[in-house]
């Protein structure tokens, strides 16, 4: 058992920290958020230069074949910097493509080189967090597949060069069987995207698919058998956002602590008041408990054992989700009025923490998933 980072991970974290401090400061981020695209080509090139884009790609395809622990380190650092680039969307897209690695070698190579940005279009208006709830349809026409439907709140959907889209081949809307996955170019005929800002400074898009045609080579995995892939990548995505949230919470804690030590009221630092001290200790505990669960999620994020993976990942989404809510709210309260202003970084940390689980499943959703696993009622 070993909880320490490898030398490479420590180096990676330090390099990344230096880069975000220098190239991705609060002012810079604010400019990017305010720009037309909401993302920065320059920052993307920077991430590429750091090797971050090659990280999750298999070694055979010019990548580094990163482990869950490597990604845990990266996502924490990106969380601390509140990165708004389509990094996580691309990493999750890569995770999908890896299930058919040979077929998508070009795209994976492109992702590793930083020339391909991906997004995962899974959610639909009625599906909420259930990734198997797919109304988007696909039918075969000769050697092509024709997609029809609407995907909603696709994170970085408009900034992606290719979208990974789930669509139903057979079965009823909420069947686990009968779902396929396709890689669809962002500029495909019939595909239209409505791009919008999200509250946390990111971008999302609603994606309409009207008779969008893709070749058979665009399908990931076997026809109608995509559910286990979607389930696994969703869990991987959860592990990534848990790590990101821990990075943010750590930063929130440091910022808030700093504030308690410097802000004076009634002739003393407000950190001298025990009522605030105890709330700060609660924050500390929340962050450490969340960190533990994020580590657990990272360590099983690629496990083939679906039961073990779901237990750990939903457990992590529950515990980290609770912590994200509490730490964010407490940080604003402890900052007082100043925490309510958009000028303060803590406000932006809070906004990002607020969105935790909005796409990958909130605490209630993961509680239901957690309790419906066979091992819950019949332990050992």
């Amino acid at each position, binding site marked *: 058992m070993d909880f320490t980072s490898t030398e490479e991970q420590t180096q990676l974290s330090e390099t990344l920290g230096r880069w975000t401090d220098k190239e991705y400061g609060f002012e810079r981020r604010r400019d990017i958020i305010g720009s037309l695209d909401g993302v920065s080509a320059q920052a993307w090139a920077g991430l590429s230069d750091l090797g971050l884009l090659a990280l999750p790609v298999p070694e055979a395809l010019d990548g580094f074949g990163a482990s869950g622990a490597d990604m845990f380190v990266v996502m924490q650092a990106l969380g601390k910097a509140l990165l708004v680039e389509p990094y996580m969307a691309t990493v999750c897209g890569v995770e999908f493509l890896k299930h058919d690695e040979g077929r998508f070698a070009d795209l994976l190579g492109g992702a590793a080189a930083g020339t391909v940005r991906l997004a995962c279009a899974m959610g639909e208006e009625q599906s909420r967090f259930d990734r198997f709830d797919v109304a988007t349809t696909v039918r075969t026409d000769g050697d092509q597949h024709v997609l029809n439907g609407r995907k909603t709140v696709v994170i970085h959907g408009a900034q992606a060069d290719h979208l990974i889209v789930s669509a139903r081949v057979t079965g009823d809307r909420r069947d686990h069987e009968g779902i396929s996955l396709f890689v669809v170019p962002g500029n495909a005929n019939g595909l239209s995207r409505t791009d919008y800002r999200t509250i946390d400074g990111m971008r999302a898009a609603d994606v309409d698919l009207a008779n969008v045609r893709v070749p058979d080579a665009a399908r990931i995995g076997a026809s109608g058998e995509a559910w286990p892939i979607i389930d696994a990548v969703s869990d991987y995505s959860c592990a990534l956002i848990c790590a990101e949230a821990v990075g943010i919470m750590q930063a929130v804690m440091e910022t808030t602590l700093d504030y308690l030590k410097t802000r004076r009221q009634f002739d003393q630092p407000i950190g001298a008041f025990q009522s605030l001290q105890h709330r700060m200790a609660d924050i500390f505990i929340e962050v450490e408990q969340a960190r533990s669960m994020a580590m657990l999620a990272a360590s099983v994020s690629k496990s083939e054992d679906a039961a073990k993976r779901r237990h750990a990942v939903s457990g992590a989404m*529950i515990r980290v989700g609770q912590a994200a809510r509490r730490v964010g709210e407490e940080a604003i309260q402890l900052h007082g009025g100043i925490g309510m202003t958009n000028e303060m970084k803590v406000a932006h940390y809070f906004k990002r923490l607020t969105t935790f689980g909005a796409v990958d499943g909130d605490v209630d959703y993961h509680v239901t998933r957690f309790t419906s696993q066979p091992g819950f009622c019949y332990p050992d």
Partner: protein
Amino acid sequence: MNLEYDAQELEFRSEVRSFIDLNLPDDLRAKVLNHKRLSREDYRKWHTILHRRGWVAPNWPREYGGAAWTPVQRHIWEEETTRAGAPNIISFGINMIGPVLMEFGNAAQKDYYLPRILSCEDWWCQGYSEPGAGSDLASLKTSAKRVEDESGAYYLVNGQKTWTTLAQHADMIFCLVRTDNSGRKQQGISFLLIDMRSPGITVRPIITLDEDHEVNEVFFDDVRVPAENLVGEENRGWTYAKYLLSHERSNVAEVGRSKRELAFLKRLAMATPSGDGSVLEDPLFARKVALLEAELMALEITNLRVVSADHGNSEPGPEVSMLKIVGTEVQQRLTELMVEAVGPYGLPLDVDFLEGRREASVTGHDAAAPLTAHYLNFRKASIYGGSNEIQKNIINRMILGL
């Protein structure tokens, strides 16, 4: 980062497991698993079994008869013994006074007391708390005056200790006493070893809200304690007390026990009907269990992070305060949910059943009968060993720098 146990650790786990299978008496196991009260003999029985195997003192070095296990081994040991339903080893001898004597005791004290702790010939209790000094331990008033006369040197002890756990069973008590009133209150405290059979000692039971006799008041009325029973130097007792407290907080997370109790809670809730199904299948109840399970999963990893960082035998750091807070909150929440799970069957108070004077409980719901008393008893967890508020103060001072 690797959250799996290595081969050596797994081998150790299976060795521990088979030892327990062969050696833990069924009656003891049943009592522990069903939250019944243990007698002095119950505790001694398991202690003796472990002593024969050389495993009664996992944290002691070999030269004193300990098992000298690594922190991770000790964690595995704790997890396996508690899961199996083994009684706790009463920690006053093994975990508290033992390490203090090894560090600060003289040769004669070590030679005499340490083997007797291992063999359970002496049952120790702790004389720290006083009625006027709870979390503010240094405010203690029990006095010890050094006297020399023709019979030799001794301390004359007067005062009162309270919350003295299982003092009714004890042969010896280690006490913090005031030997000087002149300086800061932390100065002027000494550390004495006192024979509980000394004339002038009175033990009076405190019956707690669950109608259990677990704690006591101990009165000292002109008790003569031989001067050689002073540990270390006079007026340096606060140092030894702090050292002891840091050891008391090892294994404070009680992850093993809580995992066992979580499994118990689930079995209980599965066996308790509600509507057409079971209590555990009620989504509202299941939600509470899930939130608690996630907390316990996190605690287990947090605990392992702290434990595995402790490579040497160094004193546990301030992170232990976090383990105390979360560990006790989890324990308390488990007892709450057990009571909720059984609903009306949490009402009976069946002390005869709890103390083993009757085989079956009055309602026949044997698993349910002890639970409310157990819940009441566990309110102590966030109070003892430095209340959880004191632990938050430690986090603030030692970690956050507030």
